[in-house]
């Protein structure tokens, strides 16, 4: 069955502010889903708490709206129990890099085959615009009474430090790039991060659509704005690490990736910064311990015999603990 965009609509009233970048993300994500070979029955979206977290209610696929900062462990739990599911976790930058950053780091260490999308708007939208961890030090959005007092974290570099095997950035209003990037992330075997730059017109008056669009930077020749985000794909940049690469080449690649991740301001790279399929997924690592894991995953096991009782062979399980009277010659 081909999935059409209209299949992904729900009746739920969308209460994002007019002009919110979340609309762009919703659109791009949905298009990506229709273009991917996904069984809608196997698709589950998990989200955190924030404006961003409401996306699952606007999308007609099973959707689990979790707790603030906890979207990753919820989502990983489902995927581990049923590796057949296509799991996409979604959350705000406060959710994922603020309160939830511990899970971010440890999810990277696991490398479960799933996708994580961050709505990166520089603010805590739903609680009225406090600074999120991606807002730079000293910036003062209109929602802040004082300039931001904390240094920002860069999701790209943090993901790299945490072991993510796919790291990408895209922009809410570049629908084509967004959907292509999401598709790559979903197709990646391993844990994939897509950081999406998202204007929040209500609270963040610094990183606005106009700012990203470069409306303050009119090209003298064309008289057109010069957008800040530029596509890595167009620059010949290739962030892939392949099995054949020498340790030295890997080193060089890593430096290059980090260099790219540090670009910000007038030129903001978007695209796939890093992709590494040489690192085994968590599923592979489990298979080394539980050979039948993918064949008969936890969610696929039969818990009762036809007579309703447990099929577990308790005797063989408790062998070690068993003491039976031995008749001794004495």
């Amino acid at each position, binding site marked *: 069955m081909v999935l059409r965009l209209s299949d992904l609509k729900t009746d739920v009233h969308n209460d994002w502010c007019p002009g919110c970048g979340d609309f762009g993300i919703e659109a791009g994500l949905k298009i990506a889903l229709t273009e991917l070979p996904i069984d809608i029955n196997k698709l589950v979206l998990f989200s955190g708490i924030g404006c961003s977290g409401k996306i699952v209610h606007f999308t007609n696929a099973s959707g689990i709206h979790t707790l603030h900062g906890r979207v990753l462990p919820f989502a990983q739990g489902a995927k581990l129990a049923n590796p057949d599911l296509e799991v996409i976790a979604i959350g705000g930058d406060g959710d994922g890099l603020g309160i939830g950053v511990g899970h971010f780091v440890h999810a990277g260490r696991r490398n479960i085959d799933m996708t994580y999308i961050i709505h990166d708007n520089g603010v805590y939208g739903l609680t009225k615009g406090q600074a999120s961890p991606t807002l730079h030090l000293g910036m003062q959005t209109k929602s802040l009474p004082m300039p931001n007092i904390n240094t920002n974290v860069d999701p790209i570099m943090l993901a790299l430090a945490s072991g993510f095997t796919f790291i990408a950035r895209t922009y809410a209003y570049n629908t084509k790039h967004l959907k292509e990037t999401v598709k790559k992330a979903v197709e990646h075997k391993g844990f994939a991060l897509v950081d999406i730059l998202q204007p929040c017109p209500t609270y963040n008056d610094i990183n606005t659509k106009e700012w990203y669009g470069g409306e303050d930077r009119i090209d003298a020749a064309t008289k057109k704005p010069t957008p800040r985000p530029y596509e890595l794909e167009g620059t010949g940049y290739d962030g892939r690490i392949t099995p054949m690469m020498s340790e030295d080449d890997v080193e060089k690649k890593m430096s290059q990736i980090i260099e790219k991740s540090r670009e910000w301001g007038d030129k903001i790279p978007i695209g796939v910064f890093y992709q590494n399929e040489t690192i085994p997924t968590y599923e592979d690592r489990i298979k080394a311990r539980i050979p039948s894991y993918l064949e008969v995953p936890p*969610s696929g096991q039969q818990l009762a*015999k036809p007579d309703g009782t447990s099929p577990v062979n308790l005797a063989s399980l408790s062998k070690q603990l068993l003491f039976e009277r031995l008749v001794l010659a004495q």
Partner: protein
Amino acid sequence: MLVLDQIEQYMCPNCEYPIDGCECACPYCSDFAGACALGGLWTFGLREYYSSIKGPHSYFEVRVNSERIRSHVNNVNLLATFDAETLIRHADEVNPGGGIIYDPSFSAVEIDKVDTIETPAVLRIKARLAKQGLPATVAGILDEAKRRNVNLYPIPYNDIIAKTAAQIGEHQLSKVSRIINVLSVSVSLALLGFDLNYLDQSLGRTFGGKKKVIEMNEIGARMAYDFAKDLAKQPFPYQLRPAQNQSRLLLMGNEAVALGKIVGGCRVQTYYPITPAADESEFIESHENFDLLDGGEPGKKGSILVTQTEDEIAAITMATGAALTGVRAATSTSGPGFSLMVEGLGWAGMNEVPVVITQYSRGGPSTGQPTRHEQGDLKFVLSASHGEFPRIVLCSGDLEECFYDAIMIFNYAERYQMPAIHLIDKSLANSSATIPQLRSDMVPIQRGKLINSGHQSEGNGEYHRFAFSDDGVSPRAVLGLPGYRFWNSGDEHDTIGHIEEDPDNRIKMMTKRMTKLETAAHEIPEEEKFNFFRSTKKQADVTLVSWGSTKGPILDAMRMLEKEGIGVEFLQIRLASPFPTESVREKLAGAKLAIDIEQNYTGQMAAVIAEKTMIDISNKIVKFNGRPMSQDEIYEGVKQIISNPSQNRRVVLTHGA
């Protein structure tokens, strides 16, 4: 064939580590218990250890009997020591007529110099010796014991170790010195007149294929056995004899829970390491692939995925995510971990997810006494998390309950679609006992209104995960089930699962969720909610009320009281939520003298009973020094209250080291 109540108390490191860190899975390494179990005797073993890896004192107390026993007692008949500290701490607990096994080289040790003994304890012991005009040394301790008519059995461990080393041709004495534990066991067996073969068999189990280790132990054991036989000119007053028995298990509470979970269909377990819960997860992990019976999936193995998470917040939320796929999922923790799970618990409550949390209570508050016992978390787990939602709280009282409850709690969780807390404690987790063989077919697997994957629904959008119903329970689909798309939200939601702020919907949804608790209260049979024991005497003089691991010592104390003609009833509450209000009210209404017995400061179950029934159990026996209650303490506490039946007694028990 009657065998006297025997108690053995000794330190256990036969591997490199003390009991807590032991590599060979205590209590098998407690080969004494193993040998006795092989000999058909009933055993009960208690472990006490510090919250640190090597250093401080830990000990293991084993009680053996031809009749079933369920607790430890205050004093022991035989004390086996490997170091001066154990002697200093425990010599006064040996009954007159009992014995002490020790190395004669300890005698000169000064009590002041053993810096692992806490200052308060040192002061207490020195004062005691001084009063008797004895020196503050091990020699003084031994003199004191002798005066109390305790038999002394000096065993030159090092000699025996050296000889063993020579015999097997091992130059590194340190490698052989680990057998010291087995030496003391074999000395004990010699004194108790028990056959050494049982120890040999037990060693075989403990060390599995490690031939060389077994040989080394066997040689040393034989040497020690013979030495001890020679030493004890007069037979030791307590003698053990093997008994007939059925097949039994010797296990600890955390193993009982682990087995129950596997049998009960748990297929995902998450955990973050914490004492004393982690042992359970590690036991499961080491049995992650297990055999199925015919009628299971023939030829196939079952498996359970154990995942160590980054913290307890992840542990519960990951287990909850897993449970949404239809898997039976659990996590296991103790107080500090549970404190971190509170927000996740509420989400599971709001979204009606059957996730199981095994909570091993230990000494609190905060980090508290990580390796010590307490039942201090009852009221906390009953009301943990903001807002109101239903939950199951089931409290096990002994190892068999640990096992069967671990199965039942998944049934409750799934039938009523709510988080379920299996509340046990450090004493249950770490006590070992021989128990009758467990059965995998006693508790049928009941999954409640789980939508069968056979029942394909037409189209989508029609499935209402939170559909209203009379009993509050809605048909439950799982993630990935074709045709059953659904939504969850920690926000108040409509029947589909979408956020809904409407006030009328709110009333209905709150009522739906809370109704499930009434349904559970109604459907769960009374015999699963509490146990009620009564002595043969028709009219009970006293009604004991308790819950959890005090069950064992209370049952044992009841026998003592009965012997004196005191009629005792014992109401053991198992289900704390939903609470069996009517039954408890009825049982207590008729009580002549009710006594609440709890291992905490405030008497938390008594408070719950008061809240639910308005009945004030003003007589209390409590203990909160970190050590579990003994049979004797309960016996004495009850007698104390009976003998002076003015209201409002609070007896604080203090035994333990």
